[in-house]
């Protein structure tokens, strides 16, 4: 067991999967000679060569399409998109091709690609480098969408994604690449389905995914000092959603808050609220609350940026509201 950073966990998963199966390749901008913007493929170019760790031109739609085509004939590509904003350029090949090929071929073809990309705000990267977009991918039939919150899931879910036969979108976060966690030394896999209770509690369920899980955990600590015992549920997987785990937690705590870094309209929180309405409406003792980003393009100015994005304090205040304390 060693404490490693999120980026190191991703790098290790690449390395092991590439060593295990020569059909596994990595492709993306600056991932080879330069080692990757977030070091996720550091040193792998030297180890596996330019045919397996492929530096692509800045052509997101077509290099993603090339990965998809290769995956149809047995290659297992791990495609890195440097920022989720750039994934918008690859939506045609991701949404119109990868997500639909199995279905429109009547199950005769498949696209087992992995697309990894950081989504989320970092520090003053402005509107075109701060998108989150999880809601867009989670609304697309034919994709799996996962959001590892830390190194254990980042490692174990990438390994599962490489072996899974479906297209998997892994949404990472710029602010999490240096986040550290104890990770077992021996090989393991983390499943691509299932939410996880990361903190047991009885008074309120705080639901998060990706970076917002950390906001929920921090808020839970503060709530504890107020005598409120919060449960924290990490969705882990946005598609398919684990409605059973959500239902069980809400039926236990009777109160719920959903924290997302995305804007609210037609968002992850809206979907979770809809599921709660459908599955456990009568278990609720209070109106659910959503904590989310302001409905604006992310501003450059640090003060404005902070105001646009939810914080742990916002989650804390929101939880107090659900509890009827404010």
């Amino acid at each position, binding site marked *: 067991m060693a404490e490693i950073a999120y980026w190191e966990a991703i790098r290790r998963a690449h390395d092991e999967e590439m060593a295990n199966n020569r*059909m596994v*390749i990595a492709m993306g901008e600056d991932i080879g000679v330069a080692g990757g913007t977030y070091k996720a493929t550091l040193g792998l170019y030297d180890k596996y060569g330019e*045919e397996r760790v*492929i530096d*692509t*031109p800045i*052509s997101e*739609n*077509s*290099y*993603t*399409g*090339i*990965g*998809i*085509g*290769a*995956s*149809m*004939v*047995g*290659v297992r590509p791990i495609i890195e998109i440097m920022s989720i904003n750039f994934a918008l350029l690859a939506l*045609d*090949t991701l949404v*119109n*091709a990868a997500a639909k*090929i*199995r*279905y*429109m*071929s*009547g*199950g*005769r*073809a*498949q696209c087992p690609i992995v697309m990894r990309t950081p989504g989320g705000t970092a520090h003053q990267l402005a509107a075109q480098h701060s998108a989150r977009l999880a809601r867009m991918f989670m609304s697309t*039939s*034919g994709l*799996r969408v996962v959001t590892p919150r830390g190194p254990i899931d980042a490692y174990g879910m990438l390994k*599962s*994604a490489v*072996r*899974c*036969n*479906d297209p998997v979108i892994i949404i990472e976060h710029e602010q999490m690449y240096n986040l550290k966690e104890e990770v077992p030394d021996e090989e393991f*896999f*983390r*499943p*691509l*389905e*299932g*939410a*996880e*209770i990361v903190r047991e509690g009885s008074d309120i369920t705080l639901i998060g995914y990706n970076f917002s899980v950390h906001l929920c955990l921090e808020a839970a600590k503060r709530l504890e000092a107020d005598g409120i015992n919060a449960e924290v549920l990490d969705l*882990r997987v946005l598609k398919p959603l*684990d409605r059973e*785990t959500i239902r069980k937690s809400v039926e236990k705590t009777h109160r719920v808050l959903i924290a997302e870094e995305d804007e609210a309209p037609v968002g992850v929180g809206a979907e979770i609220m809809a599921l709660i309405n459908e599955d456990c409406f009568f278990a609720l003792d209070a109106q659910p609350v959503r904590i989310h980003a302001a409905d604006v393009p992310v501003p450059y100015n640090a003060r404005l940026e902070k105001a646009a994005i939810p914080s742990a304090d916002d989650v804390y205040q929101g939880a107090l509201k659900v509890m009827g304390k404010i």
Partner: protein
Amino acid sequence: MNDADKKRLLKEMIFFRRFEDRTFEAYMERKIGGFLHLYSGQEAVATGVLEKAMLGKGTDNDYVITGYRDHVHALKAGAPAREVMAELYGKETGSSRGRGGSMHIFDPSVNFMGGYALVGQPFPLAAGLAMGCKHKGTKQIAICFLGDGANNQGTFHETMNMAKVWNLPVLFVCENNGYAIGTHIDRSTAVKDQYKRVCAYDMQASQHDGMDIEIVMEAAEQAIDFVRSGKGPYFIEFMTYRFRGHSMSDAKGYRTREEEIEWEKRDPIRVFSKRLIEQGLLTEDDIKTMEREIDDEMENDIIKFAEESPEPKVEDLNKFVLDDNPDPRWIGPLQQ
């Protein structure tokens, strides 16, 4: 080419024309729905190019991929005609189990990797198929058929660049029929000769008559040899014409009857039939016999199969969205 092959290829082209005409009739009878884009007039291109590809070896075939005007490419690649017709009828026995329809014929058992409705999308997919061939170390190549209209998509430029940079074994076949849906190439495209556009990527390219199957085959053989020998991608342009509209809803108001008549004189079936008759290989009566045999097969086997096949079950609506038999080691569920 020996005499038997000439006769076989003529019969294949007549079959493909009849197949398309028959789908038109079924469409008018509302037995086929959705969009229907027919290939009539361009038969020499798919037939001639794929005649020179590695086919008949199942999953060791060359990979073939194309746009939405895909029936004939699928048939020539080896997809059974019964299954292609059943797909158009939306039946469970169809090439894509009734889930794809006319624009999305798939038959991976013969490496026909699909028809796609997003114009230009097959460019990168084809380069990916080629990357797969290279990675597996086989002698297979990928062959991508698209129209001139596709060359104005960004994927054209992005893919030509990467195919060349990575020296991928892919043949891009441009079927230049002069129209991007209903807009003439002169009004949409700065460079009229499409093969010249890939010079910007330092790619081998050439342009040929696409209405004469013998010219197509000769040119395709050279291009395929080039790609298969590892020299990199090749872009081959064939000048051709589609006799029908873009799709069923197309009144063809964007072109003149005079233009159509000029191209009809160059009908690839007419050109090749005349040549084989002049060479003494066939008589008019022999061709009529061929047509009767084809009609008989079309009605009594292909259409019959499509009409009598079952539809997909509604309870199978959610099949094929994701892998229906996923490995629990990767998928879970998570143990709490």
